[in-house]
Protein backbone atom coordinates (compact mmCIF):
# COMPACT_ATOMS: atom_id res chain seq x y z
CA UNK A 1 0.00 0.00 0.00
CA UNK A 2 1.32 3.43 -0.88
CA UNK A 3 2.36 5.82 1.85
CA UNK A 4 0.82 8.61 -0.19
CA UNK A 5 -2.66 7.11 0.42
CA UNK A 6 -2.18 7.69 4.16
CA UNK A 7 -1.18 11.33 3.92
CA UNK A 8 -3.49 14.30 3.80
CA UNK A 9 -1.20 17.07 5.03
CA UNK A 10 -0.43 19.38 2.05
CA UNK A 11 3.10 20.06 3.30
CA UNK A 12 3.87 16.34 3.52
CA UNK A 13 2.41 15.79 0.05
CA UNK A 14 4.59 18.59 -1.32
CA UNK A 15 7.60 16.95 0.31
CA UNK A 16 6.63 13.59 -1.18
CA UNK A 17 6.41 15.12 -4.69
CA UNK A 18 9.81 16.75 -4.25
CA UNK A 19 11.29 13.47 -2.96
CA UNK A 20 9.94 11.46 -5.91
CA UNK A 21 11.38 13.96 -8.37
CA UNK A 22 14.73 14.11 -6.58
CA UNK A 23 15.09 10.31 -6.41
CA UNK A 24 14.25 9.84 -10.08
CA UNK A 25 16.70 12.55 -11.05
CA UNK A 26 19.57 11.35 -8.85
CA UNK A 27 19.33 7.73 -9.95
CA UNK A 28 20.47 8.42 -13.50
CA UNK A 29 22.67 11.39 -12.70
CA UNK A 30 26.29 11.90 -13.53
CA UNK A 31 26.92 12.58 -9.82
CA UNK A 32 25.64 9.16 -8.77
CA UNK A 33 27.51 7.38 -11.59
CA UNK A 34 30.81 9.11 -10.77
CA UNK A 35 30.28 8.24 -7.10
CA UNK A 36 29.52 4.57 -7.72
CA UNK A 37 32.17 4.16 -10.40
CA UNK A 38 34.80 5.95 -8.33
CA UNK A 39 35.72 8.38 -11.09
CA UNK A 40 38.01 10.48 -8.89
CA UNK A 41 39.25 7.58 -6.80
CA UNK A 42 42.67 6.10 -7.44
CA UNK A 43 42.45 2.72 -5.73
CA UNK A 44 46.24 2.34 -5.35
CA UNK A 45 46.41 5.79 -3.80
CA UNK A 46 43.54 4.94 -1.45
CA UNK A 47 45.47 1.93 -0.14
CA UNK A 48 48.53 4.10 0.50
CA UNK A 49 46.50 6.86 2.19
CA UNK A 50 44.62 4.41 4.39
CA UNK A 51 47.90 2.92 5.61
CA UNK A 52 49.77 6.21 5.90
CA UNK A 53 51.66 7.24 8.97
CA UNK A 54 49.87 10.02 10.90
CA UNK A 55 53.17 11.69 11.84
CA UNK A 56 54.13 11.94 8.19
CA UNK A 57 50.74 13.40 7.34
CA UNK A 58 51.19 16.03 10.07
CA UNK A 59 54.70 16.83 8.85
CA UNK A 60 53.44 17.41 5.28
CA UNK A 61 51.48 20.44 6.37
CA UNK A 62 54.56 22.36 7.69
CA UNK A 63 54.74 24.77 10.62
CA UNK A 64 55.10 28.47 11.43
CA UNK A 65 57.87 30.22 13.37
CA UNK A 66 57.09 31.12 17.00
CA UNK A 67 55.44 33.19 18.23
CA UNK A 68 52.53 32.70 15.85
CA UNK A 69 49.07 34.25 16.03
CA UNK A 70 45.88 32.94 14.48
CA UNK A 71 42.47 34.56 14.20
CA UNK A 72 38.99 34.07 12.74
CA UNK A 73 35.36 33.41 13.75
CA UNK A 74 35.75 35.83 16.71
CA UNK A 75 38.75 34.05 18.22
CA UNK A 76 42.45 34.95 18.46
CA UNK A 77 45.08 32.47 19.61
CA UNK A 78 48.81 32.80 20.15
CA UNK A 79 51.33 29.98 20.21
CA UNK A 80 54.55 31.16 21.79
CA UNK A 81 57.54 30.24 23.93
CA UNK A 82 57.89 30.90 27.67
CA UNK A 83 61.11 32.36 29.09
CA UNK A 84 62.13 28.79 29.90
CA UNK A 85 61.59 27.65 26.30
CA UNK A 86 58.32 25.74 26.76
CA UNK A 87 55.61 26.11 24.12
CA UNK A 88 52.30 27.60 25.22
CA UNK A 89 48.95 28.33 23.64
CA UNK A 90 46.97 31.35 24.78
CA UNK A 91 43.43 32.39 23.97
CA UNK A 92 43.61 36.16 23.37
CA UNK A 93 40.02 36.65 22.20
CA UNK A 94 36.89 34.54 22.59
CA UNK A 95 36.16 31.80 25.06
CA UNK A 96 35.75 28.03 25.23
CA UNK A 97 37.98 27.04 22.31
CA UNK A 98 39.18 23.42 22.05
CA UNK A 99 42.46 22.74 20.28
CA UNK A 100 45.38 20.34 20.68
CA UNK A 101 43.34 18.28 23.12
CA UNK A 102 42.73 21.15 25.58
CA UNK A 103 39.88 23.62 26.04
CA UNK A 104 40.86 27.21 26.75
CA UNK A 105 38.74 29.76 28.56
CA UNK A 106 39.07 33.51 27.88
CA UNK A 107 42.63 34.72 28.39
CA UNK A 108 43.88 31.31 29.52
CA UNK A 109 47.43 30.25 28.73
CA UNK A 110 48.43 26.56 28.79
CA UNK A 111 51.80 24.95 28.19
CA UNK A 112 51.49 22.26 25.52
CA UNK A 113 54.27 20.61 23.53
CA UNK A 114 53.13 21.47 20.00
CA UNK A 115 54.49 22.99 16.81
CA UNK A 116 52.73 26.03 15.37
CA UNK A 117 50.78 24.70 12.37
CA UNK A 118 50.23 26.74 9.21
CA UNK A 119 46.56 27.01 10.23
CA UNK A 120 44.85 26.20 13.45
CA UNK A 121 41.92 23.76 13.53
CA UNK A 122 39.76 24.24 16.63
CA UNK A 123 36.28 23.60 17.96
CA UNK A 124 34.07 26.33 19.38
CA UNK A 125 32.26 25.95 22.69
CA UNK A 126 29.17 24.63 20.86
CA UNK A 127 31.18 22.06 18.94
CA UNK A 128 31.46 23.86 15.60
CA UNK A 129 34.68 22.98 13.77
CA UNK A 130 36.53 26.12 12.61
CA UNK A 131 39.93 27.05 11.19
CA UNK A 132 41.96 30.06 12.33
CA UNK A 133 44.73 31.60 10.22
Amino acid at each position, binding site marked *: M*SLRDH*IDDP*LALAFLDAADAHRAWLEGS*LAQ*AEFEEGLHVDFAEVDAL*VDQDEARLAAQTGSRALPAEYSGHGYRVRIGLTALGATYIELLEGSGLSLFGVTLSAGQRVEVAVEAPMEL*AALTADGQPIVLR
Partner: protein
Amino acid sequence: MVSLSEQVADFVSTGAQAGALWSNVLSHVRNATRRYPDAYFELGQKNDESIEGLAGRVFTICARVEKGRFPFMKRTPFVAYVEEDFDDPPIRYHSFYAKLSITREILRDDYAKNIRRDPVLRFRDDLHRRIGKVLPEVGIALEGGKGGHTRWTIQAGPRRPMTEDAVVDALKGRDEPLEVLVSEALKVIAVPISHSRLSNLLGRVIDPPSTDEADAGAGESLEDTVTIRRAVIEAWEELGDDERALVAALARGDSYDDLIARCPSLNNRVAVSRATKRVGQVFVARVVEAIGGTADASAPPRELLEQVAGVLLPLLPELES
Protein backbone atom coordinates in the same frame (compact mmCIF):
# COMPACT_ATOMS: atom_id res chain seq x y z
CA MET B 1 51.98 11.05 18.83
CA VAL B 2 48.37 10.20 19.70
CA SER B 3 46.88 7.90 17.05
CA LEU B 4 43.63 8.67 15.23
CA SER B 5 41.88 5.77 16.96
CA GLU B 6 43.01 7.04 20.38
CA GLN B 7 41.77 10.53 19.53
CA VAL B 8 38.39 9.11 18.50
CA ALA B 9 38.17 7.01 21.68
CA ASP B 10 39.06 10.00 23.90
CA PHE B 11 36.57 12.18 22.06
CA VAL B 12 33.76 9.65 22.42
CA SER B 13 34.40 8.91 26.09
CA THR B 14 35.19 12.37 27.49
CA GLY B 15 35.08 14.91 24.67
CA ALA B 16 38.84 15.34 25.07
CA GLN B 17 41.06 15.55 21.96
CA ALA B 18 38.24 17.28 20.09
CA GLY B 19 40.48 19.99 18.63
CA ALA B 20 43.23 17.52 17.71
CA LEU B 21 40.73 15.13 16.15
CA TRP B 22 39.14 17.92 14.12
CA SER B 23 42.59 18.97 12.91
CA ASN B 24 43.24 15.39 11.81
CA VAL B 25 39.88 15.17 10.01
CA LEU B 26 40.69 18.40 8.15
CA SER B 27 44.06 17.04 6.96
CA HIS B 28 42.54 13.79 5.73
CA VAL B 29 39.67 15.53 3.94
CA ARG B 30 42.23 17.76 2.17
CA ASN B 31 44.08 14.62 1.06
CA ALA B 32 40.94 12.77 -0.02
CA THR B 33 39.71 15.69 -2.16
CA ARG B 34 42.94 16.36 -4.04
CA ARG B 35 41.68 14.87 -7.32
CA TYR B 36 38.23 16.46 -7.29
CA PRO B 37 37.42 19.44 -9.54
CA ASP B 38 35.57 22.62 -8.55
CA ALA B 39 32.19 21.15 -9.50
CA TYR B 40 32.25 18.92 -6.41
CA PHE B 41 32.46 21.75 -3.89
CA GLU B 42 29.90 24.12 -2.46
CA LEU B 43 28.97 26.84 -4.93
CA GLY B 44 31.21 25.14 -7.50
CA GLN B 45 34.45 26.49 -6.05
CA LYS B 46 37.30 24.47 -4.64
CA ASN B 47 39.14 26.66 -2.16
CA ASP B 48 40.22 26.67 1.49
CA GLU B 49 36.75 27.77 2.63
CA SER B 50 34.84 25.08 0.77
CA ILE B 51 37.27 22.32 1.79
CA GLU B 52 37.03 23.41 5.42
CA GLY B 53 33.24 23.48 5.14
CA LEU B 54 33.27 19.96 3.78
CA ALA B 55 35.66 18.78 6.51
CA GLY B 56 33.42 20.41 9.12
CA ARG B 57 30.45 18.44 7.81
CA VAL B 58 32.44 15.20 7.82
CA PHE B 59 33.44 15.88 11.43
CA THR B 60 29.88 16.78 12.48
CA ILE B 61 28.45 13.64 10.87
CA CYS B 62 31.11 11.41 12.42
CA ALA B 63 30.48 12.98 15.83
CA ARG B 64 26.71 13.46 15.85
CA VAL B 65 24.78 11.63 13.15
CA GLU B 66 23.64 8.04 13.60
CA LYS B 67 24.03 6.29 10.27
CA GLY B 68 22.18 3.15 9.32
CA ARG B 69 24.50 1.47 6.85
CA PHE B 70 27.42 -0.90 7.44
CA PRO B 71 29.58 -0.57 9.48
CA PHE B 72 27.74 2.10 11.50
CA MET B 73 24.44 0.28 12.13
CA LYS B 74 22.48 3.12 13.74
CA ARG B 75 25.49 4.53 15.59
CA THR B 76 27.50 7.67 15.00
CA PRO B 77 30.63 6.76 13.03
CA PHE B 78 32.93 7.72 15.92
CA VAL B 79 30.96 5.54 18.35
CA ALA B 80 30.94 2.67 15.83
CA TYR B 81 34.73 2.92 15.42
CA VAL B 82 35.22 2.66 19.18
CA GLU B 83 32.70 -0.16 19.69
CA GLU B 84 34.13 -2.14 16.76
CA ASP B 85 37.64 -1.51 18.10
CA PHE B 86 38.84 -0.15 14.74
CA ASP B 87 42.45 0.94 14.49
CA ASP B 88 43.55 3.82 12.26
CA PRO B 89 43.33 2.32 8.73
CA PRO B 90 39.64 1.32 8.80
CA ILE B 91 38.73 4.65 10.41
CA ARG B 92 40.51 6.49 7.60
CA TYR B 93 38.94 4.14 5.04
CA HIS B 94 35.30 4.58 6.07
CA SER B 95 35.55 8.27 6.91
CA PHE B 96 37.68 9.68 4.10
CA TYR B 97 39.14 7.46 1.42
CA ALA B 98 36.84 4.55 0.48
CA LYS B 99 34.87 4.89 -2.73
CA LEU B 100 31.72 5.05 -0.57
CA SER B 101 33.23 6.94 2.40
CA ILE B 102 31.42 9.66 4.33
CA THR B 103 33.60 12.32 2.69
CA ARG B 104 32.88 11.11 -0.83
CA GLU B 105 29.15 10.79 -0.10
CA ILE B 106 29.03 14.48 0.77
CA LEU B 107 31.08 15.36 -2.31
CA ARG B 108 28.57 13.44 -4.42
CA ASP B 109 25.66 15.34 -2.87
CA ASP B 110 27.29 18.74 -3.38
CA TYR B 111 28.11 17.81 -6.97
CA ALA B 112 24.49 16.75 -7.55
CA LYS B 113 23.34 20.09 -6.17
CA ASN B 114 25.76 21.98 -8.41
CA ILE B 115 24.58 20.02 -11.44
CA ARG B 116 21.08 21.34 -10.83
CA ARG B 117 22.20 24.97 -10.70
CA ASP B 118 24.99 25.20 -13.28
CA PRO B 119 23.97 25.15 -16.96
CA VAL B 120 27.23 23.58 -18.19
CA LEU B 121 27.05 20.81 -15.58
CA ARG B 122 23.37 20.31 -16.38
CA PHE B 123 24.33 19.86 -20.02
CA ARG B 124 26.94 17.24 -19.05
CA ASP B 125 24.42 15.46 -16.85
CA ASP B 126 21.92 15.38 -19.70
CA LEU B 127 24.65 14.10 -22.06
CA HIS B 128 25.47 11.37 -19.51
CA ARG B 129 21.82 10.24 -19.50
CA ARG B 130 21.68 10.21 -23.31
CA ILE B 131 24.93 8.22 -23.47
CA GLY B 132 23.40 5.79 -20.98
CA LYS B 133 20.61 5.06 -23.46
CA VAL B 134 23.03 4.62 -26.38
CA LEU B 135 25.64 2.46 -24.63
CA PRO B 136 23.65 -0.83 -24.52
CA GLU B 137 22.93 -0.44 -28.25
CA VAL B 138 26.51 0.07 -29.41
CA GLY B 139 28.73 -1.29 -26.62
CA ILE B 140 29.43 -4.48 -24.73
CA ALA B 141 29.06 -4.39 -20.95
CA LEU B 142 31.81 -5.97 -18.85
CA GLU B 143 30.58 -6.53 -15.31
CA GLY B 144 32.65 -6.36 -12.13
CA GLY B 145 35.74 -4.52 -13.29
CA LYS B 146 38.21 -2.82 -10.98
CA GLY B 147 36.12 -1.27 -8.24
CA GLY B 148 33.19 -3.60 -9.01
CA HIS B 149 31.36 -1.46 -11.55
CA THR B 150 30.35 -2.05 -15.18
CA ARG B 151 32.74 -0.95 -17.90
CA TRP B 152 31.99 -0.66 -21.60
CA THR B 153 33.87 -1.67 -24.71
CA ILE B 154 33.21 -2.50 -28.36
CA GLN B 155 33.97 -5.42 -30.69
CA ALA B 156 36.91 -4.37 -32.86
CA GLY B 157 40.28 -5.63 -34.02
CA PRO B 158 43.50 -5.10 -32.07
CA ARG B 159 44.08 -1.43 -31.38
CA ARG B 160 46.66 0.65 -29.59
CA PRO B 161 45.05 2.51 -26.67
CA MET B 162 45.04 6.30 -26.97
CA THR B 163 45.28 8.83 -24.17
CA GLU B 164 42.04 10.63 -23.31
CA ASP B 165 43.45 13.90 -24.70
CA ALA B 166 44.21 12.18 -28.00
CA VAL B 167 40.69 10.70 -28.10
CA VAL B 168 39.18 14.15 -27.55
CA ASP B 169 41.37 15.61 -30.32
CA ALA B 170 40.38 12.77 -32.67
CA LEU B 171 36.63 13.28 -32.11
CA LYS B 172 36.38 17.04 -31.56
CA GLY B 173 34.49 18.94 -34.21
CA ARG B 174 32.84 15.88 -35.77
CA ASP B 175 29.22 16.58 -36.51
CA GLU B 176 27.85 13.09 -35.94
CA PRO B 177 24.87 11.63 -34.07
CA LEU B 178 25.62 10.66 -30.49
CA GLU B 179 25.54 6.90 -31.15
CA VAL B 180 28.29 7.34 -33.77
CA LEU B 181 30.42 9.40 -31.38
CA VAL B 182 29.95 6.84 -28.58
CA SER B 183 30.83 3.99 -30.91
CA GLU B 184 33.90 5.83 -32.27
CA ALA B 185 35.01 6.77 -28.76
CA LEU B 186 34.83 3.15 -27.59
CA LYS B 187 36.83 2.11 -30.68
CA VAL B 188 39.66 4.60 -30.25
CA ILE B 189 39.85 4.33 -26.46
CA ALA B 190 40.49 0.61 -27.01
CA VAL B 191 40.19 -0.27 -23.32
CA PRO B 192 37.00 -0.85 -21.30
CA ILE B 193 35.72 2.41 -19.81
CA SER B 194 33.09 3.30 -17.21
CA HIS B 195 29.94 5.17 -18.21
CA SER B 196 30.86 8.23 -16.15
CA ARG B 197 34.40 8.43 -17.57
CA LEU B 198 33.03 8.15 -21.11
CA SER B 199 30.48 10.89 -20.34
CA ASN B 200 33.26 13.15 -19.07
CA LEU B 201 35.34 12.44 -22.14
CA LEU B 202 32.50 13.16 -24.59
CA GLY B 203 31.63 16.21 -22.49
CA ARG B 204 34.97 17.59 -23.69
CA VAL B 205 34.20 16.62 -27.30
CA ILE B 206 30.71 18.11 -27.54
CA ASP B 207 30.59 21.80 -26.76
CA PRO B 208 28.19 22.82 -23.98
CA PRO B 209 25.69 25.62 -24.57
CA SER B 210 26.79 29.19 -24.08
CA THR B 211 27.37 30.09 -20.43
CA ASP B 212 25.72 33.47 -21.00
CA GLU B 213 22.60 31.90 -19.52
CA ALA B 214 22.09 33.23 -16.03
CA ASP B 215 23.33 30.89 -13.36
CA ALA B 216 20.41 29.77 -11.22
CA GLY B 217 22.66 29.79 -8.16
CA ALA B 218 24.04 33.28 -8.73
CA GLY B 219 23.60 35.42 -5.66
CA GLU B 220 23.48 32.44 -3.36
CA SER B 221 26.18 32.78 -0.74
CA LEU B 222 27.98 30.07 1.14
CA GLU B 223 26.72 31.72 4.31
CA ASP B 224 23.04 31.39 3.22
CA THR B 225 23.57 27.77 2.27
CA VAL B 226 25.21 27.00 5.59
CA THR B 227 22.48 28.82 7.55
CA ILE B 228 19.64 26.87 5.94
CA ARG B 229 21.50 23.59 6.12
CA ARG B 230 22.21 24.14 9.83
CA ALA B 231 18.51 24.91 10.43
CA VAL B 232 17.49 21.73 8.61
CA ILE B 233 19.98 19.62 10.59
CA GLU B 234 18.73 21.17 13.85
CA ALA B 235 15.16 20.36 12.87
CA TRP B 236 16.20 16.79 12.04
CA GLU B 237 17.84 16.45 15.45
CA GLU B 238 14.65 17.73 17.08
CA LEU B 239 12.61 14.88 15.59
CA GLY B 240 11.93 11.60 17.38
CA ASP B 241 13.04 8.25 15.93
CA ASP B 242 9.65 7.52 14.35
CA GLU B 243 9.43 11.00 12.86
CA ARG B 244 12.87 10.61 11.32
CA ALA B 245 11.87 7.21 9.98
CA LEU B 246 8.76 8.80 8.47
CA VAL B 247 10.77 11.53 6.71
CA ALA B 248 13.25 8.93 5.43
CA ALA B 249 10.41 6.70 4.22
CA LEU B 250 8.83 9.64 2.35
CA ALA B 251 12.19 10.50 0.80
CA ARG B 252 12.87 6.91 -0.26
CA GLY B 253 9.36 6.32 -1.55
CA ASP B 254 8.84 3.38 0.83
CA SER B 255 5.48 1.67 1.08
CA TYR B 256 3.22 2.17 4.08
CA ASP B 257 3.78 -1.46 5.10
CA ASP B 258 7.56 -0.95 5.18
CA LEU B 259 7.09 2.10 7.37
CA ILE B 260 4.84 0.47 9.96
CA ALA B 261 7.11 -2.58 10.06
CA ARG B 262 9.82 -0.23 11.32
CA CYS B 263 7.53 2.07 13.30
CA PRO B 264 4.51 0.20 14.72
CA SER B 265 3.31 3.39 16.44
CA LEU B 266 2.43 4.78 12.98
CA ASN B 267 0.02 1.94 12.23
CA ASN B 268 -3.02 4.13 11.66
CA ARG B 269 -3.94 7.09 9.53
CA VAL B 270 -4.35 9.47 12.47
CA ALA B 271 -0.85 8.73 13.79
CA VAL B 272 0.69 9.28 10.35
CA SER B 273 -1.28 12.47 9.87
CA ARG B 274 -0.21 13.82 13.27
CA ALA B 275 3.43 12.92 12.65
CA THR B 276 3.56 14.42 9.16
CA LYS B 277 1.97 17.66 10.41
CA ARG B 278 4.48 17.99 13.25
CA VAL B 279 7.46 17.19 11.04
CA GLY B 280 6.46 19.83 8.49
CA GLN B 281 5.93 22.39 11.24
CA VAL B 282 9.32 21.65 12.85
CA PHE B 283 11.24 22.09 9.59
CA VAL B 284 9.38 25.23 8.55
CA ALA B 285 9.71 26.78 12.03
CA ARG B 286 13.47 26.14 12.14
CA VAL B 287 14.06 27.61 8.71
CA VAL B 288 11.91 30.68 9.47
CA GLU B 289 13.87 31.16 12.69
CA ALA B 290 17.18 30.86 10.81
CA ILE B 291 16.30 33.28 8.01
CA GLY B 292 14.12 35.48 10.22
CA GLY B 293 13.90 39.11 9.18
CA THR B 294 14.37 38.36 5.49
CA ALA B 295 11.62 38.52 2.86
CA ASP B 296 11.91 34.76 2.38
CA ALA B 297 10.86 34.18 5.99
CA SER B 298 7.31 35.34 5.23
CA ALA B 299 6.83 33.04 2.23
CA PRO B 300 3.89 30.59 2.36
CA PRO B 301 4.66 27.36 4.29
CA ARG B 302 4.55 25.30 1.08
CA GLU B 303 7.29 27.44 -0.50
CA LEU B 304 9.34 27.22 2.68
CA LEU B 305 8.90 23.47 2.72
CA GLU B 306 10.07 23.27 -0.88
CA GLN B 307 13.18 25.15 0.27
CA VAL B 308 13.57 22.61 3.10
CA ALA B 309 13.17 19.73 0.63
CA GLY B 310 15.83 21.25 -1.62
CA VAL B 311 18.30 21.10 1.26
CA LEU B 312 17.05 18.04 3.11
CA LEU B 313 16.73 15.57 0.22
CA PRO B 314 20.37 15.77 -0.89
CA LEU B 315 21.37 15.81 2.79
CA LEU B 316 19.36 12.76 3.86
CA PRO B 317 21.96 10.20 2.80
CA GLU B 318 24.37 11.97 5.18
CA LEU B 319 21.83 12.09 7.99
CA GLU B 320 20.12 8.80 7.59
CA SER B 321 22.09 6.22 5.58
